[in-house]
Each structure stands twice: as C-alpha cells, then as structure tokens.
C-alpha cells in the first residue's frame, strides 16, 4: 500500500519543530508500524536526508520504549498493543497518517519523535520498590500465604511497562494511571504493606514535582494503555494516599 505520512520533525529540544509530509510506497500489510518507519528512514538515508528519530527497543511489546501518537491516539488506533505491535493491516492504501511525539510538559522532546520519559523513572525511584535485599538469605516464596485474587490483581498492576501512553492520552497529561499501577502492585501484597504509606506519599510528591497534570477520571488512559491497567487502580491509589495522610 502507498501512504502519506505527516511526521513531527524537530532537530533539537530548543528547535521549534513542525509537521513534515512524506510518501512511502509498497508497504506490506504484514509490516509492523516501526518496520514501515524503517522503510521510510532507508529511503531518507538513500536520498541523503536526515532519518526520523523514534524510540524502540524490544519490538515485542514488553519494554515500553516505542511511543508515538498515531492518528490522534497513543500507539495508534488498535487496542491493548504498543506501537511495535501495531500492524499496517490496520490502515488502508492511500491513508494519511499523523505521527507525533507523546506530548506533555513532563516529557520534553529530545529529537523528532523521541521524548525524555525519565520523569516516570524518578517517580518509581521515589518509592516504587521494597527495601529488602534478595540475595543470600532469600525466604521461601510460599512462606507468606497470599489470596489468589490479591495476587492476580497485583500481577495485573505489575504488567505496566512504563510506556507513558496514559500520560500522552490524558487531556491533563496526568501520570495517575502509571502511578496507580506502581502503587497497587505493592499495596495488594503483605510485603508491600510495610512501606505503603511512605511509598505513596513520596511517589505523589515526585509526580507533582515533575509537572504532570491532575486526574479528572476521563478514562482515556485506561482505553489507550497497552496493558489494560484499570481505573480501579486509581481509586486504590486515592484510598492509599488518604490512609497515609490521616
């Protein structure tokens, strides 16, 4: 298929940036979206032009590096997938596709479609862990009984890959879905309860410092999240924070 691409080009963090139009031809429907961009970049390099910078790593939906706001949605129009898992069969011959970086004050643009998402890492570092060493005298994994339902919910929350699609989709550029997944995965387990109050307090403090917006429960994050993290986690986060503050 032949496509028209409208891609955000920006040379550096300070550059103003603009949408530039490109044509790509003979794209196979079996290609992933990133492979389609590889084809474009090969074309550009052959013509002596600067290739489009975009993030990627695993290309199998686990690392969370690939970003991109495609035709107005984080990770494109498909559901429960990352951009590397988006296939060109989702589009039709002759389509025009807008490709923009994830936009948020907390995600400054480095170049073209590459944004700096380390704000999410700093939130994680502020409390998204359990302070015990696992080497040497590791306890038997089954020594603490945990209800199946709690274990399942915790595991669901732990599938968050920190991709930032929730921030990119939210009209307020809020990181609450990410936060809530990171808080919930520990809050549901006895090992996580010990530091629960400090964890949620410190992580929220860091989140606010990074310049993310405030959640208004629009639910856009939940729809666009590649891992299906539920808004129920945000309610849990709100409960945890209230508990920690009184």
């Amino acid at each position: 298929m032949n496509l028209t691409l409208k891609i955000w080009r920006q040379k550096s963090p300070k550059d103003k940036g603009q949408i530039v139009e490109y044509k790509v031809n003979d794209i196979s429907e079996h290609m992933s979206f990133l492979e389609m961009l590889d084809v474009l970049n090969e074309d550009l390099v052959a013509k002596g032009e600067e290739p489009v910078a975009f993030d990627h790593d695993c290309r199998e939906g686990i690392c969370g590096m690939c970003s991109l706001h495609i035709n107005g949605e984080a990770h494109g129009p498909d559901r429960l997938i990352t951009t590397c898992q988006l296939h060109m069969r989702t589009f039709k011959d002759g389509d025009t596709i807008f490709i923009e970086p994830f936009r948020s004050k907390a995600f400054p643009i480095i170049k073209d479609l590459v944004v700096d998402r380390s704000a999410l890492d700093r939130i994680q570092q502020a409390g998204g862990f359990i302070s015990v060493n696992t080497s040497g005298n590791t306890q038997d994994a089954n020594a603490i009984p945990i209800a199946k339902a709690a274990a399942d919910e915790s595991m669901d929350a732990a599938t968050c890959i920190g991709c930032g699609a929730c921030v990119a989709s939210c009209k307020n550029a809020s990181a609450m879905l990410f936060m809530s997944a990171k808080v919930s995965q520990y809050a549901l387990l006895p090992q996580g309860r010990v530091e629960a109050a400090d964890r949620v307090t410190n992580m929220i403090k860091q989140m606010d410092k990074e310049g993310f917006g405030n959640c208004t429960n629009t639910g856009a994050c939940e729809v666009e999240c590649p891992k299906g993290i539920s808004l129920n986690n945000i309610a849990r986060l709100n409960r945890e924070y209230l508990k920690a503050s009184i």
Partner: protein
Amino acid sequence: MSGYFSSSVGRKFFMALTGLFLVFFLLVHLIANLTLFFGADSFNATAEFMGTNPVIQVMQPLLALGFIAHIITGIILELKNNSSRPIKYTKNNVGANSTWMSRNMIITGLMIFAFLALHIINYFIPIKTTHVENHYELVVGLFKNPIYAGIYVLAFIFLGLHLMHGFQSSLTTTGIRQEKYQKCIKTLGTIYSLVVALGFISIAVWFHFA
C-alpha cells in the same frame, strides 16, 4: 494533612467532596421545587420552611462556601491541567477514548455558574431583600417569560452533562470505586443525572405552558 490538600490528589479529593455536597443539595432543592406541582399553598409553605428552618439557615452559608470552593478549585485545576501540555497535538482523536462530558467539565461548570448568578439575581435576592408574599406567583411568573424558561432548560441540560461525569468521577476520586461496585455506580450516576436534569426541566416546561 496540610501536605495532603496541597497535593494534586488532595486537591482533587476536595473537589470531589464539594461536588458531592452539591449533589446532595440539588436533591433537596429538587424535592422542594416539585411541590410547585401541588399548587400555590404547598409551594408557599415549602418556601416558608426554607426561609425559616434553622437547619436550612445554617446550611445556606455552607452551601455558598461549597459553591465558591468548588468553582475556585475547579478553575485552578483546569489552569494547571491546561499548562501540563503546552504544545497540543495536531491531530487528537479524543472521541476514541473518552466522553464529551468528561472532557468539558469546565464548560458545563461555567454554564451552571452563569445560571446560578442569574438565579440569585432573579429569585434569591428578591426574596431576601423584599417581603415576598407569594413565592408561587414569583416563580411561576418567571417561568412564563420565554427567555427565562429557555435559559433555565439549557442550564439544566448543562447540569445533567456535568453530573453524568461528575457523579461517578467523584466516587473514583474519593476511592469508593471498586470493580464489584462500578457497574452499579455508573447506573446510579446516570439515573441521578437524568432525574435531576429532567426534574427541574419538567417544572420549567410545565409552568411555561400551563
């Protein structure tokens, strides 16, 4: 606790509490207004009760504070959220992932505010500053005015839209939401929004044409 309310999550909690307080107030107000359907005597008795009952007198300034707090916090929230994405998307398919109501709370909210100002000028100030003998006549007279009735209907459409998102949103913000209650919360929110909006609208329409 002071750290709590200055955080983003705490500010939202305050927003939800004031919102829920207004949700409760609306129900009381609607019940009072519905007595219009029972004729002049029962509505005038209700107005008399509202004007003299000590509990209502204590609640009135609280209600005013609640409104002001909700509106100011709402505007601060909106400004903060707007500045969190300084460069907007060229193409943003928001309809694919969220409802119009959830994205436009500030617009529906400000419309309610505009109506509130009108309501205070047309009804609340007259009944507080002059001695109104017959509340029923005053209210029904206002509804006869096509412009007033039209604005009234429009305002309650906006209120219904505000509540359609606000009701269930406030239960997530306060942490009440859980998977097993969510369906019930959503249904309850829709029923509440429809009852309140259509309740007030039916009064305006009935007395305009009656």
